[in-house]
């Protein structure tokens, strides 16, 4: 009798719970639809017409001025775009003129560009976008790429003029930033506007819905001014664990994801998946911080450290062969100078350099010293990046053979201040203009010169390369720059990384010819050619 009561009680509760679970909380943020486009917002979402991308992390917001995101070039387009060879080409701009002193750029724009909400893109939107990036009050992570912009002004309804405070060849690359509609921000605080979670762009795909930290749904924008995309819907799922991503790729639950080098073999063997190995301009290096310690002031010490780096071993064992030994920041650039010193692995040379510099083991504790000071420093690395941590650990053991006492400090990014680290495992590299990631790193006054590196020849050649538009002249300056940098290293260059993407065989159109950016960014560059079979 009691058991019956108990069982019936349990059954009642179970039904109740099932009902409760059925109607859940609303976590989906949908675009506010009015009567006109409520029909347009109804999309047909099924497995056959949807490309599912497994991302390591979800973007926290969708405003290109505030920060970069996975699908920036799907949702938004800019004045310029970069082609297969990473050269800037006109996109929303139809043409541009550069003044002789390289300080004034005048752009003409198309008049047939529509935003996803149906409104026309005007010159005011372009001006608003650029002014917002340089606005001090706006929490943008893109701002430091636009610091050379002095003023942006309207010339007429289809043209604008950008005035710089110093020549900046990389400006055209920077102007790929997505244009945002001014009317979405009227009367709103830019940093907290609804737009940031419900974006309206002019790219080939428009925003449908976003479920916090879970999934993002995009659908094709049929009024796109360029080639209409072939794939109807794109969904981005948040799958932080790389094992889960590989598993879902092999079962066909997702169509595309960034994978780890250790998973390539297994996924290549699977007949339903293809692995794409794409070169990137993303390199890893050790930065010497001249401001935090004077150990690196002697160039021989730095050269010794470079000679004691077995780049091949790093490429083979840490990134499982998916990388290239690095010796220059412009290796994949057309201005590369490959006749510079590459510091091929040579322990004996490293040891003799240190002896020459006066660092010997005078007290027999197997650590070199000089005038009572030990050759010891800390190598800091972000703990969340496995490759960097492995590189740091490896280098410490290699440099120990030289008699150097180097300790690894693996910290969370939020606790790292690179300017205070004696040495840091840094990542840089841009596939675009050579000025992009050189001037600001290696010039004495460079904004991202954390280690306070200073070399007169480097300063001179980088400045000269900026103020001329003649390709031959620039090539000469950059060749000189790389030579000077190799003789007086600012970094111990280690390796360039290869991006590894795995896609289901039903996805066609993915090309591996374009060099990608940091962590494989930019893989969707030819999305109009992608198809689902």
């Amino acid at each position: 009798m009691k058991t019956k009561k108990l069982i019936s009680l349990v059954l009642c509760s179970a039904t109740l719970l099932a009902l409760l679970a059925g109607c859940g909380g609303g976590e989906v943020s949908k675009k506010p639809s009015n009567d006109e486009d409520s029909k347009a917002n109804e999309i047909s979402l099924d497995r056959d017409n949807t490309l599912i991308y497994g991302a390591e992390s979800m973007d926290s917001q969708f405003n290109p001025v505030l920060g970069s995101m996975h699908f920036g070039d799907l949702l938004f387009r800019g004045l310029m775009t970069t082609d297969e060879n990473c050269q800037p080409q006109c996109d929303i701009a139809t043409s541009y003129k550069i003044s002789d002193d390289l300080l004034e750029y005048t752009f003409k724009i198309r008049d047939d560009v529509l935003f996803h909400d149906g409104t026309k893109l005007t010159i005011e939107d372009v001006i608003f976008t650029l002014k917002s990036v340089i606005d001090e009050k706006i929490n943008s992570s893109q701002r430091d790429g636009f610091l050379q912009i002095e003023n942006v002004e309207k010339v007429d309804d289809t043209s604008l003029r950008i005035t710089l405070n110093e020549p900046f060849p990389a400006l055209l690359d920077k102007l790929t930033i997505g244009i945002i509609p001014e009317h979405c921000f009227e009367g709103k605080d830019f940093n907290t506007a609804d737009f940031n979670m419900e974006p309206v762009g002019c790219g080939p795909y428009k925003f449908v819905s976003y479920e916090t930290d879970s999934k993002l749904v995009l659908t094709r924008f049929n009024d796109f001014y360029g080639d209409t995309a072939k794939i109807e819907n794109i969904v981005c799922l948040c799958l932080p664990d790389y094992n889960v991503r590989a598993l879902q790729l092999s079962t066909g639950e997702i169509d595309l994801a960034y994978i780890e080098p250790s998973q390539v073999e297994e996924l290549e063997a699977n007949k339903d998946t293809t692995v794409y190995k794409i070169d990137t301009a993303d390199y890893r290096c050790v930065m010497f911080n001249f401001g935090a310690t004077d150990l690196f002031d002697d160039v021989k010490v730095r050269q010794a450290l470079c000679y004691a780096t077995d780049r091949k071993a790093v490429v083979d064992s840490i990134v499982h062969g998916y990388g290239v030994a690095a010796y220059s920041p412009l290796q994949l650039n057309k201005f590369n100078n490959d006749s510079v010193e590459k510091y091929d692995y040579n322990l004996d040379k490293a040891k003799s350099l240190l002896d020459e510099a006066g660092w010997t083991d005078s007290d027999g504790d197997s650590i070199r010293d000089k005038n009572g000071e030990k050759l010891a420093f800390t190598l800091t690395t972000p703990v969340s990046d496995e490759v960097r941590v492995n590189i740091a650990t490896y280098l410490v053991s290699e440099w120990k053979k030289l008699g150097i006492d180097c300790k690894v400090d693996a910290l969370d990014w939020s606790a790292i201040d690179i300017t205070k680290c004696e040495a840091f495992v840094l990542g840089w590299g841009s596939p675009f203009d050579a000025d992009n990631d050189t001037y600001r790193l290696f010039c004495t006054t460079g904004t991202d010169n954390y280690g306070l590196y200073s070399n007169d020849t480097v300063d001179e050649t980088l400045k000269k390369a900026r103020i001329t538009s003649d390709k031959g002249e620039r090539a000469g300056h950059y060749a000189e720059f790389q030579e000077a940098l190799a003789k007086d290293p600012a970094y111990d260059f280690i390796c360039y990384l290869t991006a590894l993407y795995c896609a289901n065989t039903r996805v066609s159109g993915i090309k591996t010819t374009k060099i990608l950016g940091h962590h494989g960014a930019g893989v969707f560059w030819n999305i109009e050619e992608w198809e689902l079979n």
Partner: protein
Amino acid sequence: MTKYIIKRILQSVFILFVMSIIAFALINAAPGDPAAAIYGGQMDKLTQAERERINTNLGLDRPLATRYYNWLSEMLGGRMGYSYENGKSVNQIITERMPNTLLLFAVSFFLTVIISMVVGLWAGRHPYSALDRGITITSIVINGIPSVLVAIILIFLFSVKLGWLPSSGTSSIFATGAADRIKHLVISVLTVVLSHVSSFSRFIQEGLKEELSSYYVTVARANHVSNRDIYMGVMKNSLVPFINYAGSHVPSFFSGFVVVETVFAYPGLGSMIVGAIPIKDYPVLMGGILITGIVVISSMLAVDLIDLALNPKLRRAVER
């Protein structure tokens, strides 16, 4: 009686106020930087100048007391501020995430109570049986395993190896509806239930055994009172401390969610708080801590009131 309730409510408000001050001070003392969230994967590019600019924009260069006062005055007006990470309104974030956590809590708490009652009562009635001993041992073993490990083992078993259940989130892309939502809940609920059910059932089991060995039970048996009546009385008596026990464990359920939601990528309050900590997202953190605090303190107040309702001795003590 009403005086007592009002006194308790005022006490709760005071506790929340003190808690908010301590939380604010702790967040301030911890390492972390909102600029890190805004820059995300481009941290190499974050210069000191930019870091300072962003911190100034967010008002983090003002003194601690000023910032707390600003937060408090806004909060009392119902505005919990905007996330430092993406400018989203904290009210909206919490409205989106709270139902998920409440659902998880309701389902797992309910199941824990029901299952532990069924199991505990049965074991209590059959002391020294295999089930009785089994529960005692299992409870000690499971309490020793951290819930993060339990969660990972369950995901590995049911999601990776068997493929029966999804490994994260609240709903699938294509299939929607009640069945899909329940599938997404199963592993999280199972983890939370497993962490608590053994100690809950052990509590009932021990309580029941103790009651059964008390004097009035012996007297009742001697007077040929039916087994059924004895058990009805004994159960009522042992359930009162159980309600206290269950109620006082509500905070531990919520602290457990922080782990389970993060492992399972479940968009609830727990994972929201965990995500906001390394970036020192004050508005989100304070909002999350406050909401959790309110839920926890209200549940303890509810437990006390249920106690009063069930226990005439307490009622008399309060009225005096």
